[in-house]
């Protein structure tokens, strides 16, 4: 298995079967794993198999799935629930959507297997309403599975019943956090609560609830069919199997990829991704979305797995991977994610609600050229306080983009503060349009196109931009045929 860098396990059926026709799934072994579990295995056997596979949660945290199921199975109650987290809130991530749209039965089957293992008869899929195509295909898939008797009562002639319903989210990032997600399903405000109690003890309607991510579930049927020892041969020592990434940003082959854990960033970006667009220079890659950090040149040969990414100051997250080139300003990147966090913070606890806003303001000050060197220490201190004292994972990870850019691109922060320069030429407030007199032939084209009359000069004489008036629209630079206008 070395010819190609990718192996499609989770994406096995994606782009191959018609997701609206259950028979195409069945022809490719769908529901065989469920049948095997119900007819040949005890719930304990199933849990043991998942534990042995080494599968860890793909929703971000990497918690061992088998262990999670075991805990839920040991908590006794008259009703338990299996919840699929299909909230997928990271900007730029679309792996879960693609799995649901391309292979909905894999997720339904896995939820039923989980129900059998932990002793639950009800499954709920929490999906954001912005995913209409995934919702439509899930509904069709559920109806067809019921019709074929693969969901519903007495599955495979056994005493096991399992039914799945959809619950819609309004697209708040914090609702992807499991306690918040459960509150949202209960009709309460989508705000997190302190763990413990974990959902496995007290979850939906106070009952033991097992929450897993879409991609985590999608790994399950194949593990049962092919065996834990097949699955755990793929990957690294502590991270087994594959990971699907949504490769985005300045890379040539933007798309959905699936690689064994332990593949390096270099292989992902330069081999599978085809390198950086327009022959530009690689600068950084953000993994883990707003909770993650940026990795740089020096991390390119690090094998990607849960633990290595954390050691490098980022995290796996759900699998968004945004590639940046030399034109990306890293202070602005940190500001972009903080802007997102400030928007998405639920406001329940003050470190996150107020702290992130203050971080954002500091970053904004720096990108405007109004920062002072003390701001850098302030950013660090405040980040650490927010991480340590926030209630939920959103606040606990939100300063990561700030800390990792400070660690890896300190000089870029300093350039903004001390030299009032943005080395990537992104921060508008720090740019100055400037005409190089030697190159200017005085054709007047720029002066005619300037919307605010900032350019003066006689015909056939070098022109001049009044930076007090200039609004930095870039129109003049685009118009000049003599490369006389530059940004400084």
């Amino acid at each position: 298995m070395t010819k190609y860098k990718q192996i499609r396990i989770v994406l096995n059926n994606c782009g191959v079967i018609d997701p609206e026709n259950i028979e195409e799934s069945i022809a490719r072994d769908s529901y065989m794993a469920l049948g095997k579990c119900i007819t040949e295995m005890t719930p304990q056997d199933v849990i043991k198999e998942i534990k042995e596979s080494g599968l860890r949660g793909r929703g971000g945290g990497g918690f061992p799935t088998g262990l999670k199921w075991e805990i839920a199975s040991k908590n006794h109650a008259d009703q338990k629930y299996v919840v699929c987290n299909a909230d997928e809130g990271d900007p730029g991530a679309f792996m879960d959507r693609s799995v649901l749209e391309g292979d909905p039965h894999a997720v339904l089957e896995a939820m039923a297997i989980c129900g059998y293992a932990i002793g639950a008869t009800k499954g709920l899929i929490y999906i954001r309403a912005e995913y209409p195509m995934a919702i439509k295909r899930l509904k069709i898939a559920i109806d067809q599975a019921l019709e074929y008797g693969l969901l519903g009562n007495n599955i495979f002639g056994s005493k096991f019943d399992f039914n799945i319903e959809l619950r819609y989210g309004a697209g708040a990032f914090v609702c992807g956090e499991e306690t918040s997600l459960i509150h949202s399903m209960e009709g309460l405000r989508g705000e997190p609560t302190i763990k413990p109690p974990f959902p496995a003890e007290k979850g939906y309607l106070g009952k033991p609830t097992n929450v897993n991510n879409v991609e985590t579930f999608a790994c399950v049927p194949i593990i049962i069919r092919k065996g834990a020892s097949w699955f755990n041969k793929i990957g690294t020592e502590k991270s087994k199997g594959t990971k699907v990434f949504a490769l985005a940003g300045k890379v040539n082959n933007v798309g959905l990829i699936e690689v064994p854990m332990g593949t390096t960033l270099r292989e992902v970006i330069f081999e599978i991704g085809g390198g950086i667009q327009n022959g530009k220079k690689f600068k950084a890659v953000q993994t883990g979305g707003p909770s993650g950090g940026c990795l740089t040149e020096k991390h390119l040969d690090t094998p990607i797995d849960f633990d290595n990414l954390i050691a490098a100051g980022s995290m796996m997250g759900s699998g968004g991977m945004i590639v940046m080139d030399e034109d990306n300003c890293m202070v602005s990147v940190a500001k972009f994610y903080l802007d997102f966090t400030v928007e998405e913070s639920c406001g329940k606890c003050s470190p996150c609600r107020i702290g992130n806003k203050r971080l954002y303001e500091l970053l904004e000050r720096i990108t405007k050229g109004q920062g002072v060197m003390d701001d850098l220490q302030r950013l660090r201190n405040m980040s650490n306080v927010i991480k340590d004292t926030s209630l939920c994972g959103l606040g606990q990870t939100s300063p990561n983009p700030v800390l990792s850019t400070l660690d890896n691109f300190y000089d870029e922060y300093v350039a903004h503060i001390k030299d009032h320069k943005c080395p990537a030429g992104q921060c508008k407030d720090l740019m100055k349009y400037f005409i190089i007199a030697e190159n200017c032939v005085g054709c007047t084209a720029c002066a005619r196109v300037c919307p605010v009359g900032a350019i003066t000069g006689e015909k056939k004489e070098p022109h001049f931009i009044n930076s007090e008036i200039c609004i930095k629209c870039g129109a003049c630079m685009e118009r000049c045929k003599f490369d006389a206008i530059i940004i400084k």
Partner: protein
Amino acid sequence: MTKIKTIADLVKLRDELQSKQALADSADNAESIIQIKIGMGTSGIASGAKDVMDFLIEALEKRNIEAIVSQTGDMGYSYAEPTISVKKPGKSPIIFGYVNVQKADEIIEKYIKRDELVEGVIPVNYHTIDN
């Protein structure tokens, strides 16, 4: 549809579906047929996959070419959407990227009718669970 009540029912149904598929896939029998799949995840649809599908269904019928045209999920090549896969009996499926209506027309005229390759083929770049 009769309900699946035992694992034997499921195995039987799967085997039937697989042999039907195998006949459709292989050359030289009455069931052999060209199979075209269109990547219709959200990103495919957003790039115009529906128009391509409508065109293919209509054009193939007009030109008297028997084929099954169906939708599938995201093939993963967002940079080259819309993507379609074309499988001729007895051959491996070929994936074409950047397929608009003109390209689809070219694929019918050149690849489907005359086995001539057209530009935009995306080579297989992954292992599957079976190899």
